[in-house]
């Protein structure tokens, strides 16, 4: 392996270039967000946090951030409740009909988000119900529930049935077994699904833009509004904040579960 192999050189060079491509827009945002100038220039002539302060003082971003948090928490609670409950119902059933319901509940993932957005927009307008937050949360519940369901079901399947059967044979009831034996053991899958649902809702753009109303707008939707006017150091700073927020989130998930295992089935 001491001989320089042109193939492995090429492979390494490709990997470095590919990784730079993946990181480029994120790095550019982070660098430009710390500019001390009044305009975008790369690289910034001087550095500072004045645009972060300005972004935190912008009412639209403050309200957007709080609104996004609220929507994400409510979405996470609803899709957690119905997704975990469905996972237990489906995962422990031996009826083929019930098991096919996992595919049925995942149906919203096969519908493009923009179509879900239009369907809910027109339906809520016909019912004269405000599209935000009600339609917005409905949309987010539709697209996050399948993830909670799948992650909890995977956890149930890896768990196997032995401990449950042991619990039944010792005379425990179905509900007692669920509460004291099953739920504690599938906690990682449930928490993983809930965290995923939270972040998915917090980051979601299309449904948010279509269903937002003045005064009830998510942060990604606010960023879209500002960014459609072109580049702006204020937007760069709030984007930098979103990256740092996601990084913190990933760090927590990594400590708890391992991000790679969650997404790429890596050990």
């Amino acid at each position, binding site marked *: 392996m001491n001989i320089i192999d042109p*193939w492995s050189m090429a*492979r390494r060079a*490709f*990997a470095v270039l*590919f*990784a730079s*491509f993946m990181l480029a827009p*994120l790095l*550019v*945002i982070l660098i430009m967000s710390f500019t001390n100038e009044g305009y*975008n*220039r*790369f*690289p910034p002539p001087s550095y500072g946090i004045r645009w972060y302060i300005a972004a935190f003082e912008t009412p639209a971003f403050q309200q957007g951030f709080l609104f996004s948090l609220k929507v994400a928490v409510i979405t996470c609670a609803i899709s957690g409740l*119905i*997704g975990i*409950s*469905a996972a*237990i*119902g*489906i995962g422990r059933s031996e*009826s083929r009909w*019930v098991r096919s*319901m996992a595919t049925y*509940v995942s*149906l919203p993932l096969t519908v493009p*988000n*923009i*179509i879900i957005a*239009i*369907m809910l*927009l*027109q*339906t809520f307008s*016909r019912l004269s119900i405000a599209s935000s937050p009600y339609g917005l949360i409905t949309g987010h*519940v539709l697209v996050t*529930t399948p993830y909670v369901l799948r992650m909890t079901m995977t956890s149930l399947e890896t768990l196997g049935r032995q401990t*449950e*059967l042991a619990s*039944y044979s010792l005379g425990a009831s*179905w509900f007692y077994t669920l509460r004291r034996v099953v739920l504690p053991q599938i906690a990682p899958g449930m928490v993983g699904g809930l965290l995923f649902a939270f972040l998915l809702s*917090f*980051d979601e*753009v*299309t449904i948010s833009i*279509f269903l937002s109303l003045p005064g009830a707008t998510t942060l*990604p939707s606010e*960023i*879209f509004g500002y*960014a459609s006017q072109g*580049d702006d150091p204020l937007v760069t700073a709030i984007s930098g904040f*979103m*990256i740092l927020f*996601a990084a913190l989130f*990933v760090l927590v998930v990594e400590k708890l579960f391992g*991000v*790679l295992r969650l*997404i*790429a089935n*890596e050990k």
Partner: protein
Amino acid sequence: MNNVVRNNSAGFLALPAILVVTIFLFIPFAVIFQNSMTIPSEGGFAWSVKNYTTILGDSFYWEIIIRTLRISLITTAAALLLGYPAAMYLYFSKSRWRRVFLFVVVSPLFISVIVRTYGWLIIFAPSGALNAMLPEALQFPIYKTETAIVIGLMHIYIPFMVLALNASMAKIDGRFLSAAYSLGASRVMAFRDIMLPLSRPGILSGTIVVFSVSMTAFSTPVLLGGSSNKTMAYIIYQKNILLANDHEGGALAIILLLLAMVSLTVFNTIGDAAARRRGGAR
């Protein structure tokens, strides 16, 4: 086997999720379908296919449909061409950098699409990072072009391609390759006769995912392409939000959905045909 404690009655726990999907997916679909098939008339609505004939009879919309297809096709091809070597790196590499590489590929998925799009916006903008790094003579206009849309979409969706390919390649037994090499196969032959055919399921699923999300993407084409490069998603937004026309807006949404479904059928057919031809010839 475990007849003692079979608990099929627990299936009712799936009911809330089933109801949510049924009520909020199928009824809203019926609503947009009805809206797309009606036009306002005196004192109510009249059934009509006028919304569809207006759209499909107008070359303005055809130009947009063709642009949407072109952008998603090029994006998907580029994602496959770049994503395949990336997945191969993950398959072959045994160094500790492999995990770092995988992390770099996967972690952007945790950052909002709007932020990743904005990153490209400030790279491509006239006073952006790209032009700042290029000498005057090499600078070129890329802001608000189809190329900008393709690069942005590819960057955002390529993790899906790499993950799909990676999942498929992970099942390829490395001994097939060792056997091929020991029998004198060249790298090209091993790639063509082993890697490529055995990773076909990943190629197909990655292609389908990237194509359908690129075709229906909204914020990226709007921000990077602007109003001179409108895609289907852009005019769906215009019709539904800015013009509040539920009828033509609904028809456009259904046309996009049909277009996506037809494209996926075409991909599946090509995939099947490729598998059959391969199987027959060898």
